[in-house]
């Protein structure tokens, strides 16, 4: 097949995936998750376990080593069927602690230790490098196999060039779709859906090739079985040690691989999906492995002995002249490679940015950590990390010469990530596990792995001199990389697995037994180990009232974005029975906020940032440990008491507030009547006095005219007041007639601005607008909405006390709602008065009788309630700021 057609097909396929990802992302943005969050998609996304290695390499593996390839499928099957309770615990912890990656999980478990985050990240990146190289290699290999029988002059470019292009293309795709959202808990719906599609493609491709082999080339299953019995594959002998070791490595890998952790825990939307996956995923693996042996046997039988068995899936259909089938197989392999690289690099990039870039940056610029724009930095560092991770993969591919069998490279990675296993499993089941133990264990395991397996994989003399393999370093024979402690007869892979896991676990246990966990560590340990134990209160790290909620809001806006932060704070305040955006800084709230922030920047960083605001900047975890390591048990106990205390206090507060509210309502009713009386009598006084003066007669004509005008003005004032009162009463009763229609927001704002310019016309206001954003059609009562806008703009004109007054009108569309913010640059409304302004007759400045009777904002609030929207005061925006939110389509009158 001509090379350029091949490239075009790949491009078309990638564009198709892009479309799928984009459509899913759009759906998720509109809040219509639906089937995007189904157990089926979840199970299919788990299939990134089957990379190009399983797609191409498994056949090669079977051709070389018989049924041993099955261990790669059996390991995960055993874990999903037999160890689902471990997975469930991991998923529960991941959701509760808003874990962003496996590094975050381990760092978070051991007292939010950043050291552990760094260790895990480094191991993960190093171990993933050969694995990513493997994908690049298999795609490159399949390209060259496919394009080689060209006879029309389109020779494929060199394989190195192909590999570079593949690496760059994958980096681009990953960056475009993997780093759109910051909060990892917002999940990559687009990517996950695209991966589910790829999972289907690779399964169909492999089964199609298998069925072609069994029914097209052989004469059905019976003939196939006869051919298998006759082939070399049937002579395969089980090696119990290697079999057990590989089962263990594959089982560990399915838990520890950063990309598996990403789809299994981080992208998990519902714990129940795991129940489906626990049988559906093994089923998928079974289907993937069903035709491996037939394809391998048929390849050995039909193809020349020089043919690379790793490419049988491709070369068999090609040799039989089945171009379309070969193309399908090629896309299947391409799918396997791309999905793995995309998720792996997203997972690694999150780890690198959260555990290496952010902590360094936080330490370098501690003063600005809270105020700077963290979001852009995090996203940028993730994008760069993706590039770097893929760059490493490419470099390994070049260095290892691209010649090793695919399966061998994959196993190196498996053993590498298995080093996380002791820290992870002990961490979630044993409260005595400590940070030092975890750090020691993983470091020792990593060093042993690198020395006995990873570095030798570059070949003798590449990193480790050939002499070291024979004589040991410095002539120390028992330190030979392939024969540690004199164990020379073991298979190299098994040797590395055995020694790294034994030494890792030993170091971990020793470290844990000889060190005592600090208080934060103990609390996290309890939270992790007893994640299913709902009766014990979650451990509290924050004391009441240390941080100013407005500061917290400002910081959260920098990290989560304005809208999400405001929404989160509003919901929290509502949960405490408070209106507005500023909840009390209770330990519960602080803990939830920390977890939420951890979803964006990782547990350790979030903890550090919160500490800065809670006045704990100077108290490090180490200090705390020194002070309180003895009293850890007591602290835990008192935390539980405190949580009960908290509950009682909250109920009492709710009751007190309800009572106060009732009393206030009664007082308000009296005050309201008295206010109305006052507001009515005042203009009446002028009218009565002047009309009596006029009837008494003999006045100069200009005085008659003047007094007539006063009577007229006061009568108008009276009418306006009555109109407002009637309007308010109709709005409050919900008997208002709404005039619904489709209208563009932009002309509505134009109208409001023109109308409001009559208020204090002598003030020149600078108005900032974003016209393209305003171009939204809303189905609502346009006149009523304009009435609200006029009120807000007039208020700004009246009360904004800046010398060069400015008003910024910004429009956002999100989901089915449109928000319009009006923010001026004055001194704003004092915190104590913010709750009052929407009440009737709540004029804050009595002196400035700026017209109106103090009913404007009360009417606005009622209008918005009738339009199914809200009007709220936005604290922390510099000046006075109001947010009007309306539904995009108001179908009928809201209650």
């Amino acid at each position, binding site marked *: 097949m001509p090379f350029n057609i091949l490239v075009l097909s790949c491009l078309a396929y990638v564009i198709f995936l892009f479309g799928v990802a984009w459509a899913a992302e759009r759906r998720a943005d509109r809040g219509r998750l639906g089937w995007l969050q189904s157990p089926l998609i979840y199970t299919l996304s788990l299939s990134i376990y089957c990379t190009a290695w399983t797609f191409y390499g498994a056949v090669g593996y079977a051709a070389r080593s018989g049924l041993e390839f099955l261990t790669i499928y059996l390991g995960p099957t055993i874990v999903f069927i037999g160890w689902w309770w471990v997975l469930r615990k991991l998923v529960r912890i991941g959701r509760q602690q808003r874990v962003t990656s496996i590094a975050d999980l381990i760092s978070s478990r051991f007292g939010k230790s950043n050291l552990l985050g760094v260790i895990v990240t480094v191991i993960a990146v190093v171990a993933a490098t050969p694995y990513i190289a493997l994908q690049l290699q298999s795609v490159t290999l399949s390209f060259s196999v496919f394009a080689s029988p060209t006879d029309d002059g389109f020779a494929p470019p060199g394989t190195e060039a192909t590999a570079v292009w593949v690496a760059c293309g994958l980096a681009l795709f990953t960056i475009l779709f993997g780093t759109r959202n910051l909060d990892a808990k917002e999940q990559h719906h687009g990517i996950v859906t695209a991966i589910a599609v790829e999972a289907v493609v690779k399964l169909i491709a492999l089964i199609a090739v298998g069925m072609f082999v069994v029914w097209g080339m052989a004469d059905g299953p019976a003939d196939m079985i006869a051919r298998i019995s006759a082939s070399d594959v049937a002579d395969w002998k089980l090696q119990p040690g290697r079999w057990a070791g590989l089962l263990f490595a594959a089982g560990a890998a399915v838990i520890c691989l950063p990309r598996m952790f990403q789809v299994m825990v981080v992208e998990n939307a519902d714990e129940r999906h795991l129940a489906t996956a626990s049988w559906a995923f093994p089923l998928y693996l079974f289907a993937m492995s069903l035709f491996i042996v037939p394809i391998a046997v048929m390849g050995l039988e039909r193809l020349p002995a020089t043919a690379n068995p790793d490419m049988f899936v491709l070369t068999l259909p090609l040799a039989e002249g089945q171009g379309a089938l070969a193309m399908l197989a090629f896309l299947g392999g391409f799918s396997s490679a791309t999905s793995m690289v995309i998720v792996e690099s997203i997972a690694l990039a999150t780890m690198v940015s959260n555990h290496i870039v952010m902590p360094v940056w936080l330490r370098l610029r501690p003063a600005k950590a809270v105020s700077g724009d963290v979001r852009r930095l995090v996203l940028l560092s993730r994008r760069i990390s993706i590039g770097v991770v893929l760059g490493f993969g490419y470099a390994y591919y070049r260095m290892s010469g691209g010649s090793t069998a695919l399966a061998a490279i994959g196993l190196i990675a498996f053993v590498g990530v298995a080093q996380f296993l002791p820290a992870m499993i002990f961490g979630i089941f044993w409260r005595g596990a400590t940070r030092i133990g975890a750090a020691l264990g993983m470091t020792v395991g990593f060093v042993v792995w690198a020395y006995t397996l990873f570095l030798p994989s570059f070949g003798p003399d590449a990193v480790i001199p050939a002499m070291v393999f024979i004589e040991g370093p410095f002539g120390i024979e028992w330190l030979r990389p392939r024969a540690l402690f004199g164990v020379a007869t073991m298979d190299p892979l098994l040797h590395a697995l055995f020694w790294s896991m034994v030494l890792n676990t030993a170091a971990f246990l020793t470290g844990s037994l000889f060190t005592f966990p600090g208080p934060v560590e103990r609390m996290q340990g309890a939270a992790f180990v007893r994640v299913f134990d709902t009766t014990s209160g979650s451990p509290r790290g924050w004391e009441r009232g240390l941080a100013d909620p407005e500061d917290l809001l400002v910081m959260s806006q920098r990290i989560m974005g304005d809208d999400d932060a405001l929404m989160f704070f509003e919901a929290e305040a509502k949960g405490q029975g408070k209106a507005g955006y500023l909840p009390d800084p209770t330990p519960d709230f602080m803990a939830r906020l920390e977890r939420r922030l951890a979803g964006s920047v990782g547990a350790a960083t979030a903890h550090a940032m919160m500490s800065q605001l809670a006045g704990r900047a100077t108290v490090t975890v180490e200090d705390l440990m020194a002070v309180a390591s003895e009293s850890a048990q007591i602290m835990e106990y008192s935390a539980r008491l405190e949580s009960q205390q908290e509950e009682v206090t909250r109920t009492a507060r709710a009751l007190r507030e309800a009572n106060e509210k009732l009393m206030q309502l009664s007082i308000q009713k009296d005050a309201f009547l008295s206010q109305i*009386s006052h507001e009515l*009598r005042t203009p*009446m*006084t*002028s009218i*009565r006095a*002047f009309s009596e*003066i006029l009837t008494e007669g003999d006045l100069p004509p200009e005085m008659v005219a003047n007094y007539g005008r006063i009577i007229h003005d006061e009568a108008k004032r009276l009418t306006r007041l009555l109109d407002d009162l009637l309007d308010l009463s109709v709005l409050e009763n919900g008997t208002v007639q709404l005039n619904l229609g489709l209208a563009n927001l932009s002309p509505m704002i134009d109208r409001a601005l023109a109308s409001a310019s009559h208020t204090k016309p002598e003030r020149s206001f600078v108005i900032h607008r974003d016209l393209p954003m305003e171009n939204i059609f809303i189905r609502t009562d346009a006149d009523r909405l304009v009435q609200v806008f006029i009120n807000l703009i007039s208020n700004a004109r009246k009360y904004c006390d800046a010398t060069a007054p400015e008003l910024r009108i910004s429009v956002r569309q999100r989901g089915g709602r449109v928000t319009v913010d009006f923010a001026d640059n004055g001194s704003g409304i004092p915190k104590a008065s913010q709750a009052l302004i929407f009440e009737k007759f709540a004029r804050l400045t009595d002196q400035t009788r700026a017209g109106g009777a103090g009913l404007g904002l009360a009417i606005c609030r009622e209008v918005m309630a009738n339009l199914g929207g809200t009007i709220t005061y936005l604290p922390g925006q510099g000046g006075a700021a109001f947010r009007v939110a309306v539904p995009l389509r108001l179908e009928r009158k809201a209650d």
Partner: protein
Amino acid sequence: MTARVLLIEDEPNITEAIRFILSRDGCDVTALADGAGAIAAVQAAKPDLVILDLMLPGVSGLEILAQLRADPATKTLPVMMLTAKGQGRDREAAERAGASHFMTKPFSNDDMRAAVRALTGG
């Protein structure tokens, strides 16, 4: 003798009406729009009568009245309270605080004239 009246009222139109009515009746009316400078103005102008609105921006009329009654120099000074609220409670409060007369808005011009005449001994 011309009666001097100090009027403390924040609504400019009402001030204008009272000033017109009383001026035509031979009074010398000085007006003040808020309660802040009220005590100083009374001490400086030594009026024969103070007409005081109950609801003033800044200081309330009742507070001003209480201060006037506390000072021996103005203890017996005639003070007429004006209010637009007109509830029984307000009248009682004003009388307890020592108001000489209490008048509700809106008022008839004749009542106003008669009350001022009675309080200034005219």
